[in-house]
């Protein structure tokens, strides 16, 4: 039975979740992948504000296909998360709680998630058509020049994911 997870994320919600739990996420989440992360981390290093307040928020590693005129969003499945490993600690330091992507992360990353009491969730890769059906709102909020890699705020309803690293640093990949 899936557990419901509503954004913004609270510590109480996080502490009820263990590795392997299936969750359904509802509320606002933010898209961001390689290039957007690079930009955000450069902003942090220059002490400049981020395009959105990451505190208690969820970042989804995705670069969707463009929406057609009658669509909210195009295909929008997860990209591989390991490429964000060196960027994520900066964002978690600023309060980011949850990351959604596909595949494993570095072994050290388990401890990063534990340190900041966050969550790493897996979405199933290659099912972007199905996942697009959970998105009810899609707003471009930063870096339009990055095209598919721009940051978007998505409103999702019952977006399915699996807990891959929990707040205690347990990982589904190192069980």
């Amino acid at each position, binding site marked *: 039975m899936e557990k419901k997870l509503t954004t913004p994320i609270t510590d109480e919600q996080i502490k009820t979740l263990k590795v392997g739990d299936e969750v359904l996420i509802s509320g606002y989440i933010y898209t961001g992948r390689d290039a957007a992360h690079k930009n955000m981390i450069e902003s942090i290093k220059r002490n400049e504000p981020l395009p959105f307040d990451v505190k208690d928020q969820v970042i989804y590693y995705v670069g969707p296909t463009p929406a057609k005129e009658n669509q909210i969003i*195009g295909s929008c499945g997860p990209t591989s998360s390991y490429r964000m490993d060196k960027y994520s600690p900066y964002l978690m330091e600023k309060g980011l709680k949850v990351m959604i992507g596909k595949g494993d992360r570095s072994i050290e990353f388990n401890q990063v998630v534990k340190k900041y009491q966050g969550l790493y969730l897996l979405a199933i890769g290659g*099912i*972007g058509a199905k996942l697009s059906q959970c998105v009810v709102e899609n707003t471009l909020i930063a870096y339009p020049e990055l095209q598919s890699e721009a940051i978007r705020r998505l409103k999702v309803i019952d977006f399915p994911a699996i807990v891959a690293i929990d707040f205690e640093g347990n990982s589904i990949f190192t069980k």
Partner: protein
Amino acid sequence: MYKVERKTIIESVKGMLLESVKTLHKEVLDAFENARENERNPLAKNILDKILENHEIANSKDIPLCQDTGIVVCFLEIGRELYFDYDLDEAINVGVSQAYIEGYLRKSIVRHPLNRINTMDNTPAVIHHEFIPGNKLIIHIAPKGGGSENMSTLKMLSPSEGREGLIQFVLDTITKGGGRPCPPLIVGVGIGGNFEKCAWLAKKAILRPLGDITENPVDRELEVELMERINKLDVGPMGLGGDATCIGVKVNSFPCHIASLPVAVNLQCHSARKSEVTLIGKEINHTNN
């Protein structure tokens, strides 16, 4: 002499890409159905259900199967009797550009690997050329995802490592890849030739039909054994464990140097999108010699 019109090539490339990003071949879908039937891990079975459901949604709602609509790989088999008075590669790229812009596909190509400025129309495609007898032009095309490409490997083995060394290298590639290349996979293995030839063989291998049986008995045995051993690794769909790690293994080989045993492993994610067309050249009169 025979000719295939530039316009025909552009239209064919565009049409194949638009269709392939939302529709998998029946043999691939059958393989997933079969994997789902035989899967003993409940989470893996659930993921296989979702992969099949995704295909239905992609088809009925005209949404790409995957947001990564790939880098376009194209293998051309060019009839020797064909005559071209235009740039064939340019025509392919015009078809690619039209498909990605008009079809709302993701533009995933950057102009330079370090500057990383998007080309905005997903060109250029990676194009390989071969000559064949006759007056046909066969175009094989695949929008190839970055995730599975990133987990592909190449190694120049020592001949002393032999068949078992080669098998271990393939198995290591699959294990290390885990969920990143989006299993269940089609695994293309290229053996022999030299450094670039084995990569080319591996890429060609993933484009072979799943039901295609190689004539070479050594390669055929290797395909069967690799398939069995890969599916015992418990990598499973999305790397979360299970019986279905791959739905096909294709091995292509070529003679090689006495000092070498080159091997390349090209991984195809479960969104195994590809298409092919055979265009017949029309006879042209050349009266003004």
